[in-house]
């Protein structure tokens, strides 16, 4: 199939403002969009810039705005995009070059919610016990690959760049609801602040954007409830 690819380009070293560039490429219907971007880079325009690594949706490098929605370029197949595709960098992040955005802020916010196991007991000689049901409660959040697609699709972030954003809350949830963790109160306190969970307006863009199928909005709701009720519900 022959496809017209429109890409929003911007190299601050060279360009005074972003512009639209167009490429016509031949692609196989089951090629990934990432393959097509590589074809452009390798055979047409070596200056086209984007991130990628794993090429199969597990590393989170290549989140970008594809036909108006945040997607991983390596999980979108050519047959699913139609004969004209528009690609832009994700909104809500500063552009470094072309499709590459600055993720430093995103990772800072992630770190701010204490996304690590907090325990005050002595460690047992073997594993800590956890039932299958207890494990299930926080399973969804463990799938997060920190691609930033949810956060970049959220109108609350566009309006309030300081907001902690959905990805951080997903990862806080992952620990708040882990039966082995003893830091729920600290995290809930952090998240109850001005730039915490309450800026979420339940718009569901995040859940739609998540390439890992995480019910992001539901998890945020659970955290809100935990704040209101003073702790996570037991499994």
């Amino acid at each position: 199939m022959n496809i017209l690819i429109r890409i929003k380009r911007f190299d601050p070293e060279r360009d005074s403002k972003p512009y639209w560039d167009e490429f016509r490429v031949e692609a196989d219907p089951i090629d990934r969009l990432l393959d097509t971007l590589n074809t452009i880079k390798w055979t047409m325009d070596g200056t086209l810039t984007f991130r990628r690594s794993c090429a199969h949706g597990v590393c989170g490098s290549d989140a970008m705005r594809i036909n108006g929605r945040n997607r991983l370029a390596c999980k979108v197949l050519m047959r699913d995009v139609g004969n004209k595709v528009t690609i832009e960098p994700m909104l809500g992040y500063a552009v470094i070059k072309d499709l590459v955005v600055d993720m430093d802020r995103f990772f800072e916010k992630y770190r701010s919610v204490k996304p690590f196991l907090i325990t005050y007991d002595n460690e047992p000689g073997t594993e800590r016990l956890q039932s299958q049901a207890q494990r299930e409660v926080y399973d969804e959040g463990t799938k997060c690959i920190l691609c930033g697609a949810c956060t970049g699709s959220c109108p609350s972030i566009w309006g309030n760049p300081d907001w902690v954003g959905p990805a951080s809350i997903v990862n806080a949830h992952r620990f708040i609801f882990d039966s082995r963790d003893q830091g729920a109160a600290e995290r809930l306190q952090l998240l109850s602040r001005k730039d915490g969970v309450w800026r979420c307006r339940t718009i569901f863009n995040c859940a739609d954007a998540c390439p890992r199928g995480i019910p992001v909005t539901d998890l945020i709701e659970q955290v809100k409830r935990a704040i209101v009720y003073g702790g996570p519900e037991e499994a």
Partner: protein
Amino acid sequence: MYHKFDVVIVGSGGAGLMAAMQLPNASVAVLTKVYPTRSHTGAAQGGVAAALGNREEDHWKWHMYDTVKGGDYLVDQPAAEILTRDAIDAVYELEHRGLPFNRTEDGLIDQRFFGGHTRNYGEGPVRRSCYAADRTGHMILQTMYQSSIKNEVRYFNEFLVLDLLINEGQACGVVALEIKTGEIHTFHGKAILFATGGYGRAWRVTSNAFACMGDGMSIAYRRGIPLQDMEMYQFHPTGIYKVGVLLSEAARGEGGKLLNGKGEYFMERYMPTLKDLAPRDIVSRCIVQEIKDGNGIDGKDYVYLDVRHLGAEKIAEKLPDITDFARNYLGVEPITEPVPIQPTAHYAMGGIPTDIDARVVLDSQWTPMPGFYAAGEVACVSVHGANRLGTNSLVDLIVFGRRAGKHMAKFIEETSHVPLPANHEEFSREYVDRLYSSTGGESAAHIRSELQNEMIDNVFVERTDEGLRHALDKIADLQEAYKKVQLQDKGKRFNTEMMEAIELGFLLDCSEATIHGALARTESRGAHFRLDYQKRDDVNWLKHTLAYRGTKAHDVRLDYKDVILIDDPIFKPKERKY
């Protein structure tokens, strides 16, 4: 720009992060060319092996036996003992750091079957693989990264290391390109750890990420350090047809089977005891044999992986990611259809030679280079010998990553910084400048794809003298062409074209060493299978290859190092049957 740290770690996969964790009182820099959580460890699916015995009786010594035999006896046995003994505590450590393992009904870490892991020295399969659904590597990487946040490790993200600095016979730093700015940085350290992963991108069909370009191996090789056993490269049996994306062995661990074009579950014929759970080198060869015998699907170059009989529920619970891959990249529904697969380039058993404390050694006499360490896939201790068992890489990362960290912690107490060598940035600056200014007209992408095709054609599951010689000539040509690589992007800022060109240089070096080792080794052992020498030859070849770089592709120097055996009849080399 100049930076000074006690320890400089290159690579933030499982190995690099595990090492960083052991250094709470030192100043540590972790350099990585991708964000830490994008490292390739995150792609590992199946699990991490440890003889916990949570499902049935198990012992580290059985695990050691499997590792040694799986590696076709090219394993250094004392290292395998450390691997399998320490695995148990290392897995508990991961759990204590928060890793969300699947659980048994009793709340213990759950374990499942995996290829080549057996009970009682080969009697039958044993459940030894500890797992978190089919994203165990992802969970290891996340858990380690999360722990590192707690420990306030200093990261330099998207820094591409170009060179290793050596002075007075000691490693003392690295030079790196900051991708965002194009600036060159020097990191001065007392101890340097390479944890840069593998080089699967040398083959066209591979399970490896774009980042797996052999960086660390090549950088060391250019500085006179040998590469060990590079001919031992693993081709995993079940890559998605044409794409190479991995369908984890967990699929067979849970009961999936290989099916040929005649509708036959053919592994039963080749390996009556372990069947589809035989080690990877064997299963890959069986697939290639089936295809050669005309038993591929519709006579073509692939067979099926069949999980239909597991049922929708088990597939959804235990194999969600890989089901997703089949749906996404092939449009195949594994619950109702078998999945087309072929062998895919997967794992480097070889690499930078190290001792059991992850110290890099320079020759057949085990002479260490003070201050230089390597761990993970980039290193060769050697616990995987000629063929790695599934789930043994993740253990390798955590066990030897940890040992590297602990040894460095002691080492930096006892030493001070060695001064940097004169003109220490010269090599890197010239390399980058040459790429910027070249008008040679060659395309890095084109050279890379020629290399990848050649490696699939002649340095794959089956090898011959003629094919390997062809590959060597080809590499020599490609290296000449590489000198004329010209970039379109002349900018400093986030120049990924520059990055890809530099990485191609790494890949060519690793391929060169692989071919030399393979050409010289006139026997078949583990993953190295020679059609013209089909038998293992312990009299002449029970030894490790060391390849030293020459001035061009044809004049690599080879040396050999003894395999270390221990005095226990159980581990004596014998014929490998399953």
